[in-house]
């Protein structure tokens, strides 16, 4: 492992110091830019769904990965973003304005929810988000004038400056631009006082507080940014789904988002992207698996949620750092060969002393 000495300010604020990593990210962006030349329209629309998930995963990563607050109901914010965006578009708000507005609506609701649970233990937030997601699914169904109820609502096409965006490659670049912008934004956020406060909060609330971090504010800010990004993901996703109905944003979807960031690697931006790739390929993998397994098991409806649960549980127990963590360990192994020790990758355990004093 090389030790990097910071010799200038420009070097300090550089996001990608490692030349190898810079090359990899550059290649990845180049590949993403060239993808419309390589893929058919159908594959491209699948890729756009992947971009939506990557944005949503980035949103959840801010909350769960960086701030350490679990949300079991992030699909509700996808829903809020999607419905708000659709409503704004139908009112004649231009796309470029409607997208951040939808994010703001989701963010405002998220901040309210965060406000409700910010003063308490982490698990209150987890329970509150779980309840919120179930509540929202029903509310989407009941609020018929706004959401079209269970019949669903049609999403208007994307229109930029009066031109309707029809071909897939145009909207692909639009989605890609949004994702790259948000990744860049979150990477910068991590360097800002709020971002550092979030990470401090995750590692230890007590020590964060003793360093002067306002815990409640930090959590609310994290919640706002997270739900803002997720709301934008929902708005983008709405165009891909073409038709919104409450069932789309149920608990299963929340679980999928969670699976994404756990598998990708909690606490890293790359983790969100890797997780999104994983989730995008998962349905195909499950299809293959269904063919291989004996008919009695392969045809079961419950196979998909079961595998979702099993994958999450497996990663949490055996590789909490996710695929990205595995990759980092592998790289460390190569860099320090033959001196790699298992012990250099052992996680520090934290024995929480009880929060109760009675």
């Amino acid at each position: 492992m090389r030790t990097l000495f910071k010799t200038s300010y420009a070097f300090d604020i550089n996001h990608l110091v490692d030349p190898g990593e810079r090359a990899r990210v550059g290649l990845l962006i180049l590949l993403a830019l060239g993808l419309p030349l390589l893929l058919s329209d159908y594959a491209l629309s699948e890729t756009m769904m992947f971009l939506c998930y990557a944005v949503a995963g980035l949103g959840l990563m801010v909350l769960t990965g960086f701030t350490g607050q679990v949300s079991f109901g992030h699909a509700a914010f996808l829903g809020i973003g999607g419905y708000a965006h659709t409503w704004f578009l139908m009112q004649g708000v231009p796309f470029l304005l409607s997208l951040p507005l939808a994010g703001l609506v989701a963010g405002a609701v998220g901040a309210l929810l965060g406000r409700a649970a910010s003063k308490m233990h982490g698990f209150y937030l987890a329970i509150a988000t779980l309840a919120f997601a179930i509540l929202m699914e029903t509310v989407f169904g009941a609020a018929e004038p706004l959401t079209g109820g269970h019949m669903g609502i049609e999403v208007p096409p994307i229109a930029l400056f009066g031109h309707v965006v029809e071909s897939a490659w145009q909207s692909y670049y639009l989605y890609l631009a949004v994702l790259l912008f948000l990744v860049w934004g979150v990477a910068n956020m991590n360097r800002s006082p709020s971002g550092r406060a979030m990470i401090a909060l995750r590692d230890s609330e007590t020590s964060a507080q003793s360093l002067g971090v306002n815990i409640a504010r930090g959590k609310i800010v994290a919640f706002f940014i997270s739900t803002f990004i997720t709301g934008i993901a929902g708005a983008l996703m709405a165009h891909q789904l073409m038709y919104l109905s409450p069932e789309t944003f149920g608990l299963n979807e929340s679980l999928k988002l969670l699976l994404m960031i756990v598998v990708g690697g909690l606490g890293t931006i790359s983790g969100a992207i890797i997780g999104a790739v994983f989730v995008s390929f998962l349905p195909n993998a499950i299809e293959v698996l269904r063919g291989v397994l004996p008919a009695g098991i392969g045809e079961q409806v419950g196979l998909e949620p079961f595998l979702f649960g099993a994958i999450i549980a497996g990663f949490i127990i055996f590789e909490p750092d996710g695929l990205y963590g595995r990759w980092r360990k592998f790289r460390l192994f190569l860099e320090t060969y033959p001196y790699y020790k298992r012990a250099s990758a052992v996680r520090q355990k934290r024995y929480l002393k009880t929060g109760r004093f009675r």
Partner: protein
Amino acid sequence: MQWTDALQLTIIGLAQGSGYALVALGFVFIYRATEIVNFAHGELMMLGAFMVLTFAELWGLGFWMGAALGILTLGVAGYALDAAVMRRMIGESQSSVFILTVALGVMLKALAGMIWGYGPRNLTVPFQGTVEVGGLVIATSRIVVIAGTIVICAGLYLFLSRTKLGVAMQAASQNQLAAYYSRVPVKRLVSVIWAISAMVAATAGMLMAPVTQVSPEITAVGIKALAGAVVGGFGSIPGALLGCLLIGVAEPFLDYAYPPLQGVYAYAIMLLVLVVRPDGLIPQTFRKKV
């Protein structure tokens, strides 16, 4: 609405609330001992109901034998779950543990769907029929739920305060390290606590079976119980019981008042309580201090 209707709804609510309370008892028990919130408790309850159903009807052992075997199976399952899975998570961050229990719950629910199917099934219980008291018609099963809850609560209270094992459990839940130094086998006790919680949950599932029937969907009761426990203040058993009863009673009235949001009022009440009084009605958890 007439007062007899109101009374009827109240009794239905009380019965429902008692069912939630039984499940919540398990949550709080585990939470107090290990600081883990077991999001899979509703699934354990569902599994218990299915086990009783399997033994009693599919294997034809009769209700009482099936109930005993089913509850016992869940005890073993709870013990195994802690010993094999949850014990590995000691010292990991709390959020990972939450995610793990949710994942386990999803797996259990999917597994139950694969084994027993998704349609609701009927469990024939000996306490069917209705009782008429002064113009009120009450299903016997609802009375049994209420009575069962009272009996189990009293039993658990006696167990925790009078027996050596119970006192050791209290010690472990107050301070694991100190209990360990006093030669309390903390690891094994925690597993026993999981076993007891799972057994109580199985009993809840079985007692509520005449009302809710048995299907993977009854796991929702688990989340409602969680909501009830939060309303009452998570760390305390009386608080959790009170919160669950409150939610149980409020639910039928609110469902009656505005049906479109039927079934989600428990969550709405919980969110409201979290906004107004973040610690629950009887606060028990406190901020950690250095």
